[in-house]
C-alpha cells in the first residue's frame, strides 16, 4: 500500500505552521525511520497518515485514498498508529481485551479476532500477561501493550511514535524483533525515533525533518553519514558511525558488524 504525500502544509489553530511543504512517497513494504529535533513536525506528519490531522493544503494519499475524503475509522483499516505515550490509548480492564478492541471494531468474526490477538500477544511477548490490567504493568510493558493493540488490527501500514523511549536494552531488542517480523510479512513500518543507534540498526531508509521540512531522505548510510546537515536538526550520527569517521574510515559504517569488517581490513593493510 503506497503512501503519497504532496506539498503538505499544516498549521495548528494557534498559527504555528508545523509542516511547510512536505513531498514524499513511501512504497509498500518499506521500513522508514523519521528523525529530527523536538518540534520538527514528526508527530504532526504521521498524524496525517490516518487523518487524525488533515492538510491545511496539499494532499496525503494512502493506497490511492485521499485522506480528506475518508473517515478516520475507515483509514484505521489501512494505517495503525501507536502513540508516543501509551497512557493515551489504553483503557481496557485487561491486556487481552485491550488487544482485542481494535479487531473487534473492524467487525471481524470471532475466530479471526482470536487469531490476531494471539499473534500480537506472541509477537510482543505478552502472552503470560493477558489477564493483567494494563495499568498494573510497568511503563515498559504498557508500551508493548500499546504496540500489540495496534498490531492486532493487521493493517498494511504501521506507525510507531518513539517506541524505544525509556526502554532498556532487552526491551529495545524486543521492539526490534517486532519490526523485523512486520518487515518479513511485507508491512510498511514508519517509526519516529530519537534513538539514532536503533534507527541505524533497524531501518533501510531515513527521513530527517527540520522545522516542518524534509532535510534529508535516502538510504540509511547515506543520510547518517551527513553529520553537518544532521546537526542542524539536532541529530548526532550513530555512535559507531562517528567512531568510524574519527578513525578515518572511507565508508560510512552504522553497526557493529560493518565497523568490525572495516577495522579488520584497515588493520591488515597496516600489517602488510
Amino acid at each position: 500500500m503506497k503512501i503519497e504525500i504532496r506539498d503538505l502544509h499544516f498549521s495548528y489553530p494557534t498559527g504555528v505552521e508545523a509542516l511547510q511543504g512536505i513531498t514524499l512517497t513511501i512504497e509498500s513494504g518499506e521500513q522508514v525511520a523519521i528523525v529530527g529535533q523536538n518540534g520538527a513536525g514528526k508527530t504532526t506528519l504521521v498524524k496525517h497518515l490516518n487523518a487524525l490531522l488533515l492538510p491545511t493544503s496539499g494532499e496525503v494519499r494512502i493506497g490511492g485514498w485521499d485522506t480528506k475524503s475518508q473517515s478516520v475509522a475507515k483509514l484505521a483499516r489501512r494505517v495503525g498508529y501507536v502513540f508516543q505515550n501509551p497512557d493515551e490509548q489504553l483503557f481496557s480492564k485487561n491486556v487481552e481485551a485491550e488487544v482485542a478492541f481494535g479487531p473487534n471494531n473492524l467487525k471481524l468474526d470471532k475466530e479471526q479476532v482470536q487469531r490476531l490477538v494471539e499473534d500480537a500477544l506472541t509477537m510482543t511477548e505478552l502472552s503470560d500477561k493477558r489477564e493483567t490490567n494494563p495499568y498494573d504493568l510497568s511503563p515498559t510493558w504498557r508500551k508493548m501493550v500499546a504496540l500489540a493493540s495496534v498490531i492486532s488490527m493487521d493493517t498494511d501500514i504501521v506507525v510507531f511514535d518513539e517506541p524505544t523511549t525509556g526502554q532498556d536494552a532487552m526491551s529495545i531488542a524486543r521492539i526490534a524483533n517486532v519490526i523485523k517480523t512486520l518487515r518479513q510479512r511485507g508491512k510498511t513500518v514508519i517509526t519516529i525515533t530519537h534513538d539514532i543507534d536503533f534507527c541505524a540498526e533497524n531501518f533501510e531508509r531515513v527521513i530527517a525533518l527540520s522545522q516542518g521540512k524534509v532535510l534529508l531522505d535516502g538510504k540509511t548510510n547515506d543520510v547518517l553519514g551527513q553529520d553537518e546537515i544532521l546537526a542542524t536538526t539536532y541529530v548526532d550520527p550513530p555512535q559507531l558511525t562517528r567512531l568510524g569517521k574519527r578513525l578515518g574510515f572511507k565508508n560510512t559504517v552504522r553497526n557493529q558488524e560493518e565497523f568490525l569488517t572495516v577495522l579488520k581490513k584497515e588493520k591488515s593493510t597496516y600489517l602488510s
Partner: protein
Amino acid sequence: MAVVNLHNIIYKYPLTNTPVLKNINLQVEDGEFVAIVGPNGAGKSTLCYTIAGFVPHFFKGEMTGTVEVLGIESQNSSLHEWVLNVGLAFQNPFNQISGAKYTVFEEIAFGLENIGIPRDEMISRVEEAMKLTGISDLADRSPYSLSGGQQQRVALTSILVMQPKVLVLDEPTSQMDPIGTREVFVAIHKMAEQGMTVIMVEHKVEWIAHFVDRVIALKDGQVILEGTPDEVLTSSLLEESGFGISRYTSVARKAQQMGLWHSDSLPITLEEAVDGFSKVVAK
C-alpha cells in the same frame, strides 16, 4: 557530608506481596551528581519516589528502614515540608503538568506560588530557569500544545525553579533529541557544580560517562554495582542484567576477542574509543 542517607530500605507497594526495594543502603554527598542505572523493573523509579518522599507518604504501602535528607527523616516529615528540600521530575512529563495553567510561564511558576514566593522574585526565578533549560521562547505557549521533548523540558524547569537542595530526575531526557539531551546534561551538571545534589535515573550511557561522579546499578530491587562511571558502565555484570551498555564498549569487547583491541580497559565514550582503536589502525 552525606545529604541523602538511605538505610536498609525495604518497600512493598499496597496490595503486593514482593518488595520492590530489597534492603537498599545509599549515601549521596553534598553536591554529588549520581546516576542510577539498571534494567526496566529494577526499582529505579520507586527509589526516586522514596528519596522524594512519595514513598510512603503518597503511595502508602509498607516501608521499613530510614530515609534521611539533610538530617531529617522522611517518616517524621510531611510531604509538603519534604518538597522544599527535594524536587522530583517524573519519568512521564504528561503526568507532571498541572493542568491548571494556560501558559508555560504560569506552569513553571505554579510551585513557587504554592510556597508563597513574592511576585517579583517569582518572575525573575521563572525567567532565569527557562533560560537555563533553553525554553524562553515557549513562555506563552500552552503546556499541552508542546511536543513530548518540549513538555519534558517544561516539567524539568518547573522543578529546577524551586531550587531544591536535592534534585531527583527520573529519565529527564527520554523524549529529547540528542542535542537537547546534551544541553540538559550540561544544565544539570552546572546546577551540581553550584552545589545542588543530583540523583538521576538514565539509560543514555554515553552522557552518564561524560558528566556524573558516581554510578549505582540496580537490579531486582538491590544495588548490584557502585563506583565511577568507568568501573560500572563497562562491567559485564551490568550488560548481563539486561541494561544496555555503550556501543563503544560492546564493539571494543568484540574487537578484543578478535585481537583488535589492545588495552585492558574498555571504552565508554567516543574519545576513549578513538584513542584505543587508533592504536590498532595506526598509519
